């Protein structure tokens, strides 16, 4: 089942191309992370999905409809820049947006109080938004965007501006929604969140899709990394057959790029054979952060990946 399908999506503003030839399929019930540097085209893509901005060309199918407007009561949206009516009470604002999404008035009110209670804002239900802290206000807005029990939730930078404990609450909200069966897209540039929560990720840079797949697939793009310290130089290491390349990083450790087909065990035994004394040996899978820098940081590699 596909909840969202983008086909050759393009958005141009005059001479500027904000999104270029983007195709994507988001399976129902998945959590999809939109990653990319600032200005890559994430927000524009999201606005096009929501039919707030019309694409220059390309097709969008969301929850079986051609336009998000037709199914807008099943969609929840949290925009990147957060803001609320300052003079309204927390519960009223949640109920207001739920009503706009077709929820009956009385149900919307009950739901608002219930949500505020569940996510630790029960005491502030009757407080005006202007008296809330920024983080609390943001939580209220998140709740406002999901109060109508949407099937499809789009969260643009939901973690920005939240302290670590509230970030955890946000992660909780996302996983709760997912458990209830909602499909979730969220954009971020904090890789650790994406790594923890996402089933699949889309990586955009300079308006173009750079990567689309599961987190594991993304990690597999990079070879495992080995970092060592010891009584030897980089030049000595490069002579070993399983070492493709080696350089010193900012911590003074030697970063080793293992030759294809070789394993860390092989490298370790070669070191042993060459009588190089290892003081530390670190072997880890690359994380999304590495993948991100690898894909976005270097233009040449981006080109080959396409």
């Amino acid at each position, binding site marked *: 089942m596909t909840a969202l399908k983008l086909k050759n999506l393009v958005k141009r503003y005059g001479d500027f191309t904000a999104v270029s030839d983007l195709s994507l399929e988001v399976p129902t019930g998945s959590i999809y992370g939109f990653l990319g540097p600032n200005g890559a085209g994430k927000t524009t893509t999201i*606005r096009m999905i*929501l039919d*707030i*901005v*019309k694409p220059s060309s390309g097709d969008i199918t969301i929850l079986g409809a051609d336009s*998000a*407007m037709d199914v*807008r009561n099943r*969609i929840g*949206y*949290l*925009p*990147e*820049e*957060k*803001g*609320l*009516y*300052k*003079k*309204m009470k927390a519960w009223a604002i949640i109920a*207001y*947006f739920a*009503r*706009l*999404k077709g929820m009956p008035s009385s149900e919307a009110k009950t739901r608002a109080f219930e949500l505020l209670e569940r996510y630790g804002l029960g005491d502030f239900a009757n407080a005006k938004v202007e008296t809330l802290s920024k983080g609390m206000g943001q939580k209220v*807005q998140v709740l*406002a*965007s999901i109060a109508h029990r949407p099937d499809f939730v789009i969260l643009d930078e939901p973690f920005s501006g939240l302290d670590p404990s509230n970030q955890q609450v946000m992660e909780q909200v996302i996983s709760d929604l997912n458990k209830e069966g909602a499909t979730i897209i969220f954009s971020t540039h904090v890789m650790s969140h994406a790594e923890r929560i996402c089933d699949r990720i889309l990586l955009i840079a300079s308006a173009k899709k750079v990567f689309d797949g599961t987190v594991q697939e993304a990690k597999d793009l990079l070879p495992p990394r080995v970092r060592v310290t010891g009584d030897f130089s980089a030049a000595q290491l490069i002579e070993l057959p399983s070492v493709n390349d080696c350089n010193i990083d900012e911590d003074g450790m030697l970063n080793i790029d293992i030759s294809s087909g070789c394993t860390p065990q092989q490298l370790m035994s070669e070191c042993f054979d060459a009588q190089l004394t290892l003081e530390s040996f670190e072997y880890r899978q690359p994380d999304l952060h590495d993948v991100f820098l690898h894909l976005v940081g270097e233009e040449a590699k981006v080109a080959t990946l396409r």
Partner: protein
Amino acid sequence: MNNSFIIAGREYADNARTKGFWINLLMFPIILVASIKVPQLLEEKAIPTRDYILIDQSGELGDVVQLAVDRQYAAKVAEALSSYYMANAKGGVGNEIDLEKMPSGGLDGMMSDFLEQDPGALDSLMQPGAIDSAVAMMQFGLNDDAPEFVAPRRPFSKVDVPTGIISATELGTMDSGEIVSRLRPYLLGDKYLTTDENKLFAVIIIPQGAAAQVKRGGAAGMMQQLDEKDGVQFWAKNLADMSLSRAISSALNEHLRTNEYQRLGVDEEIVSQVKSTQMLFTSFDPSKDEGEEKVSMADTIRQFAPLGFVYMMWIAIFTVVNMLLNNTIEEKSNRIIEVLLSSATPWEIMSGKLIGIAGVGMTMMVGWVLSMIGVLMYMAGPQVEWAATLLEVISNSGLLPLFGLYYLCGYLIYSGLFLAIGSLCSTIKESQNFMGTATVILMVPLMTMVFVARDPNGTLAQVLTWIPLYTPFVMMNRAAADPPAFDMWGSAILMLVTIVTMLWVSSRIFRIGILRTGQPPKLVELFKSLTQSLKNQ
């Protein structure tokens, strides 16, 4: 459409909850009460009885001056007596005021006409005990609980020269310059007349031979060489209160002319008869039924009522469209608009706002009218009876439905304009740039209001009628003057077309502008994106 009403409800609640809205609502009756009460209070309390010194060296004109001051007071007493009677009469005399019958000049006009013809008419009131007997005569017609009549204070009171300044013997012959220099500290307020700190308001000096200082008209007058110091002198620091100097100078002229008639051998009796003759002059209105063509007070009110409506409409529209502007900018700068756009179509958002804010405007006007009625009922009295009759005349004139209609049209035109401005600006500050131009455009109906009312079917009125931005105001203004059917319907059609176009264009601009950030677009840019969005349709 359901979303429009949800949005309208929120807009309404949000604006109706603001302090400004309530202040606006409450200020109206407060100002209304104040504008009735404050002048009354000032009259009674603030202005003290003013003291003047009269030095008559001519031995002739002093009595004339004194009589003038007394007559002025008598007129004031007469006025007080009549409003006392009107306020306390059995059954309320106010109800008997029939504006349809009253001449268009009103009560004041009647009074001043009367006194001009016969300055001595009120002299009997100056007799001792005359006021009491006048009150006693009224008594049987008054309510039982009528308060006692309190005679107004004298506005001016004659005092003697302070002792020790000028002796009685010197007074008759002293040079006027010398008199003034001795009294100057009193006139300037440096010294007080009595212990109760009464300042000297004025000194009137009538030098010997002042009666001969007569300015003549005609060729003889041109050759005259008169010295102002030889004539009657009025010395006062306060130049604003001219009632005393006016009363004195007109009484002196009156006296002089009577003397001149005598000198020329004209019978005074005949003169006064001649002076009180009048031509029969009546204003008629050709549009009224036969036998009722005489222009009454009610007609005058009907003629000028549109002016009041135009003013009220102007204030209501611009208070309300400013709310709309601020609201839109708030949503834009908060980026709430994005969430709204994901929940409702731009058209729903726009119409919701229009409906909600129109409701706020309606509430405001209903509040004004209710508070006005409340104030009128709370404050009994002659002015109030007047105002009530006035309201009745207005509500019977058929102008109210027109007012409602033109208000709605005006609101829609300007809200479209302001909504478009609001959606193009991201801060209030930015919108100020547009507002400058907008304000100039907006001021036109207010500035031309009086001229249009004076000549409702004239060129200015006709030209402005065909500018849709001004149609509601100008046509409201012309409503009482039976404008030609072509102007009325033609401009109405043009206005409706404009409203539809305006709302349509601003909904396009709203769509384009609402997600814009940063500087408002240039006009060319705006036009381009408008045509662009048309092509995409």
